[in-house]
């Protein structure tokens, strides 16, 4: 029974996609079908956890029963090991949350039948991408993902520029997938098979120029999919203009397709990750990506565009850590991949809530929303602190592992390059914090704008997914030892030891004939937090809370109560004019409760977001001129970068891997 679950979990999504197209006009029926489909898929994948994650089984499934014939895989197979299952579970969790959020967020929009059809196709294709055991099937799933993502982006009627972002996304992804298809053709030419397990038995150790070129081309495809530099600008554009429920998926989930692809390709199929040239290359790409992503994010003044650049930056962390080829490095990378989906999804949902309530995502025209949308504000703070890696949130744990892994690598190899990576990663982290301080200040804190006086908190159906994600952010931050043991460690093991993967698909003993042996990545040792530290930390926080209630409860002066309106508290005063005494008789008590303007006339004086860090930008203005010029927005320029990167990858392979 259980071996049918992988394929069923994909089928149910695709089937419901077309079912929704039939009943598209009826809102409740449509929502129920969509919800049931993602729930069913989630439950089926969760049922696989005990046997795959804990027992370490590999579940294989041949479509139509076409089992391998005399050592050649002739059918299309599904194969689930811990690595696939980790990503698939992550994916379907994100889709489930996004689906629930969509019920509230997309309510009242037009053509929602098509929205849910495309949404479920996107979900089915991503899950299928992770679970499939056939490289051409991977390509097809990638194309379906691109398709549905482009259509969902272009269909955003709120943004005029949505269509432009969708076009660039389509062009960029098409370049990537064409290169990948060319690579697949070259692979087939050499190995006469498309099955991942068989490829990973044949390929390691038997390189020639054709397979090297194939590796470079397929790697290009996955680099495009994971928005590595210089393929990132069109992704950022698309994430900016898509509906927030879709942005969350595109940014948090779809980029993981590329991460999974790179790990699968370099660790399992080609096993080239144990050569130092590939390690340096992947880490270098990751490091440059994280730096450029975060510096560009600092210069943004659109909420979602800033978040999209941060996705690029965090993906840089993931790829840099995955390129280390140590157990700790891959562990950190996968943990960060999970965390990135959680906190970036949360942040995009918060951005969606802000847009839903105020109708704008421009940081310069927002402010003071924490009084009107307190729950969204709390969720955003949790997400922002997670992504900046403040303890005890989850981003801290994975970043901490990444630094340890990179510096350990530096010490083992004596390569100064990895020291540079460590320093960059640490500095990027504080820049991440800076740009989220900017968002926090210019959206949620500061002064409320007059036109946002009557903004309301979003509906509970949108708050529930945000709450779940916030909870998961804290949960994976505090109980990471348990989480790491159950989910991540088994995935790391399966990535390093591909004998089970090959044997599970092609029959026992198949790998022996090719003389396969597992990679060695060192043992997984890193210092965990002591649980007593948490105990003491909680005690301290408790003590602080007691202090707050003791000291702040006893205010000698009168302060406005939280629910109390300013006018009703003091009777007089026109809030919309100003807070200072100018409109009131002198001696009014409220003068004390206005913010301090050093004797000047009070005006609306919220410091906008885009120029908050000018002291930093002043020193970097040349860098920013060049970089912002390079993100020119022209689809031709982006294609030129892509071509340069493709040729660089191919040349690199021929120079260092021959």
């Amino acid at each position, binding site marked *: 029974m259980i071996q049918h679950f992988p394929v069923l979990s994909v089928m149910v999504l695709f089937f419901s996609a077309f079912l929704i197209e039939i009943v598209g006009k009826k809102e409740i029926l449509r929502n129920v079908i969509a919800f049931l489909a993602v729930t069913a898929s989630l439950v089926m994948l969760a049922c696989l956890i005990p046997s795959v994650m804990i027992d370490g089984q590999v579940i294989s499934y041949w479509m139509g029963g076409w089992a391998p014939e005399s050592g050649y895989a002739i059918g299309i197979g599904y194969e689930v090991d811990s690595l696939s299952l980790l990503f698939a579970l992550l994916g379907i969790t994100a889709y489930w949350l996004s689906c629930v959020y969509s019920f509230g967020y997309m309510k009242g929009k037009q053509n929602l039948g098509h929205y849910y059809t495309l949404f479920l196709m996107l979900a089915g294709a991503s899950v299928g991408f992770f679970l499939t055991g056939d490289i051409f099937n991977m390509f097809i799933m990638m194309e379906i993902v691109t398709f549905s993502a482009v259509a969902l982006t272009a269909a955003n009627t709120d943004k005029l520029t949505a269509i*432009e972002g969708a*076009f660039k996304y389509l062009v960029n992804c*098409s370049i990537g997938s064409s290169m990948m298809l060319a690579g697949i*053709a070259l692979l087939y030419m050499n190995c006469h098979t498309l099955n991942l397990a068989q490829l990973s038995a044949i390929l390691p150790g038997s390189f020639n120029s054709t397979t090297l070129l194939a590796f470079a081309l397929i790697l290009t495809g996955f680099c495009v999919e994971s928005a590595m530099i210089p393929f990132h600008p069109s992704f950022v554009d698309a994430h900016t203009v898509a509906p927030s429920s879709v942005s969350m998926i595109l940014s948090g989930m779809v980029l993981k397709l590329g991460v999974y692809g790179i790990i699968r390709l370099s660790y399992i199929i080609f096993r080239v990750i144990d050569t130092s040239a590939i390690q340096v290359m992947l880490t270098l790409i990751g490091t440059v990506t994280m730096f450029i992503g975060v510096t560009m994010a600092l210069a943004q003044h659109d909420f979602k565009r800033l978040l999209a650049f941060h996705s690029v930056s965090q993906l840089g962390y993931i790829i840099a850590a995955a390129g280390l080829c140590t157990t700790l490095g891959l562990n950190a990378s996968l943990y960060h991949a999970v965390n990135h989906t959680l906190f970036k999804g949360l942040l995009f949902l918060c951005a969606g809530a802000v847009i839903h309530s105020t109708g704008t995502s421009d940081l310069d025209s927002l402010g003071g929303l924490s009084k009107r949308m307190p729950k969204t504000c709390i969720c955003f703070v949790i997400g922002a602190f997670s992504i900046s890696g403040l303890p005890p949130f989850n981003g801290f744990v994975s970043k901490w592992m990444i630094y340890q892994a990179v510096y350990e690598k530096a010490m083992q190899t004596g390569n100064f390059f990895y020291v540079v990576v460590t320093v960059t990663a640490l500095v990027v982290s504080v820049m991440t914090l800076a740009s989220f301080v900017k968002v926090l200040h210019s959206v949620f804190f500061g002064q409320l704008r007059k036109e946002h006086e009557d903004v309301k908190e979003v509906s509970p159906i949108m708050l529930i997914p945000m709450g779940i994600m916030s909870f998961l952010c804290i949960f994976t931050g505090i109980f990471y030892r348990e989480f790491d043991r159950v989910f991540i460690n088994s995935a790391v093991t399966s990535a390093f030891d591909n004998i089970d993967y090959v044997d599970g698909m092609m029959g026992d003993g198949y790998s022996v004939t090719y003389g396969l042996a597992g990679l060695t990545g060192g043992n997984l040792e890193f210092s965990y937090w002591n649980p007593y530290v948490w105990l003491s930390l909680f005690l301290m926080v408790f003590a602080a809370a007691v202090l707050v209630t003791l000291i702040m409860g006893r205010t000698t002066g009168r302060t406005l109560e939280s629910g109390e309106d300013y006018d009703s508290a003091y009777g007089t005063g026109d809030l919309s004019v100003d807070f200072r005494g100018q409109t009131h008789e002198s001696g009014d008590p409220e003068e004390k409760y206005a913010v301090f303007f050093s004797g000047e006339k009070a005006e609306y004086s919220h410091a906008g977001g885009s120029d908050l860090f000018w002291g930093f930008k002043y020193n970097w203005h040349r860098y920013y001129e060049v970089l912002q010029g390079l993100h020119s927005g022209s689809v031709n320029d982006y294609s030129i970068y892509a071509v340069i990167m493709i040729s660089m990858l191919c040349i690199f392979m021929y120079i260092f891997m021959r």
Partner: protein
Amino acid sequence: MILGNYIVSVFLIVLGLWTLCTQKNLIKVVLGLGIIDYGVNLLIVSAGFNEGGTAPIYNLAELARREAVFFVDPVPQALTLTSIVIGACVDAMALSIVIMIKKRYGTVDADEVRRLRG
């Protein structure tokens, strides 16, 4: 002859990439995407070609008589068909998006269609 196929397919891929990089007209950009696809398709079909091979269609009697020894690999042809379908869909979708761009922006020049930048 098969070498010619490879040369032409690489030429087509390069031509397509060149089109993407240099042509400002968005419709030409879409055509560039199409050309890359055709180049890749040609590459796949050539990968499965055997000089002098027959079509891979046999009945059981022929298989039993071991006549089915030398044929053209059918898998790349199946791949090519799939890839052609996908390519056609990409082109259709891209062109429909270009129509929308023309409606909203009033132009199909890549230098004008860049409101998302920086």
